[in-house]
């Protein structure tokens, strides 16, 4: 493993996720309007844009938590819209980290991380525990394993949330604004964890406004507005010469708000 560097073999990267013309509406509101993108193995894709742009909904379409109305998503060569009752199995190949953590509040940190391997993968108790502890080690939360979510800080909760996703050994991890609900001084520890994962060549799709993070690890950035992709490109492209006027406006607004970049280190 670990051969996910830039160009493997014939220079073709392996596609892990491909969204194809994804549409989704809630009631009469079209939230996502024909979005397509590809995510290569071992890369980090950052999706950003104003609130209400449909980023979170798009993420939920990707793992079929809220299946799209039209279009489809491929996980490698599997069409997720055609998996029928096996969708839960394929969904477990996507880890998901939520803005509001969504830890199971009646379970300890260890319980939260163990339950996936235990119940979904049917791994025996002691092995599941070992897997969970390894995941917790990775996010530096092992010492907190016997605490309940209510006893943790936001940053700790989010790292536990990341561990819960990691314990399923997912092919891709989806991050839905993982730092937006955190106090500024807690953002760093979560970003650091995400940077570690990116450097380990985990495949990640992150909805985030942390431009420092994007600059450091994103190989592809997607700017969305009003349910559609406005512009895509590398971080260099976005930070030096974004072509679209809307992108420019949004990025300058971000810098105005946050000042010089929060590096996450």
């Amino acid at each position, binding site marked *: 493993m670990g051969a996910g560097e830039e160009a493997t073999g014939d220079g073709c990267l392996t596609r892990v996720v491909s969204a194809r013309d994804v549409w989704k509406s809630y009631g009469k509101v079209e939230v996502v309007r024909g979005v397509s993108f590809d995510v290569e193995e071992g890369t980090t894709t950052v999706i950003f844009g104003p609130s209400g742009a449909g980023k979170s909904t798009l993420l939920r379409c990707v793992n079929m938590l809220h299946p799209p109305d039209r279009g489809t998503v491929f996980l490698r060569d599997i069409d997720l819209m055609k998996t029928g009752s096996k969708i839960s*199995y394929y969904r477990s190949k996507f880890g998901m980290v939520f803005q509001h953590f969504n830890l*199971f*509040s009646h379970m300890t940190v260890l319980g939260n991380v163990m*339950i996936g391997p235990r119940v*979904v993968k049917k791994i025996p108790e002691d092995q599941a525990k070992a897997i969970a502890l390894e995941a917790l080690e990775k996010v530096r939360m092992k010492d907190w394993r016997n605490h309940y979510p*209510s006893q943790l800080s936001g940053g700790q909760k989010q790292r536990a949330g990341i561990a819960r*996703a990691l314990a399923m050994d997912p092919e891709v991890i989806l991050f839905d604004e993982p730092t937006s609900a955190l106090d500024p001084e807690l953002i760093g520890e979560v970003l650091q964890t995400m940077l570690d994962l990116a450097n380990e060549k985990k495949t990640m799709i992150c909805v985030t406004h942390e431009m420092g993070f994007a600059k450091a690890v994103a190989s592809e950035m997607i700017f969305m507005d009003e349910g559609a992709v406005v512009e895509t490109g590398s971080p260099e492209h976005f930070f030096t010469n974004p072509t679209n006027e809307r992108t420019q406006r949004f990025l300058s607004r971000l810098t105005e708000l946050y000042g010089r970049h929060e590096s996450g280190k």
Partner: protein
Amino acid sequence: MAILRVYGGGVGRLFVSAYERVMRSIPPLVLIFLLYFGIQTTVLEIPGFFAVMLALGFCSSGYQSQIFRGALESVGSGQMDAARSIGMSRLQAIRLVIAPQALRFALPSWANELATMIKDTSLAFVVGVAELMRRTDYVRAATFDPVIPFLIVAGIYFLIVFPITRAAGTWGQEKKRLVTGA
């Protein structure tokens, strides 16, 4: 009932909410008479005990369904999303994630409902079931003293119900902790 109401889709929701509405709008006493005399005269002889049990059961289930519905809804959709995101089926999510939390939310109100129902058992008196109230009345009739026996029976009800409402209070504190820590 509550699971049907929250996750059961259109028909389930309609049925349960109609059921709840009816059961909560009828006084338990009317229900007892209806079941006791109604069934007695039309279908078959049923002992008063069963009539009362059924009536209170129907009545209370209307309230309990409401309580658990509120509890299920208060768990929040994020928990369902999270459970399903790690690959759980909807049923697994309800069983392992939603229900255990909802139960904790529901306990205080549920204990109150239990207390109410215990007190309502005194209504069985009217159809001749020899429950606590009726026995007390026998004593009153025998001793011609209306005060002491009823004071004693009040004390007995208190002793049964007090620990329950007390527990409800403690569980309420627990619930508050759970909510703030979500």
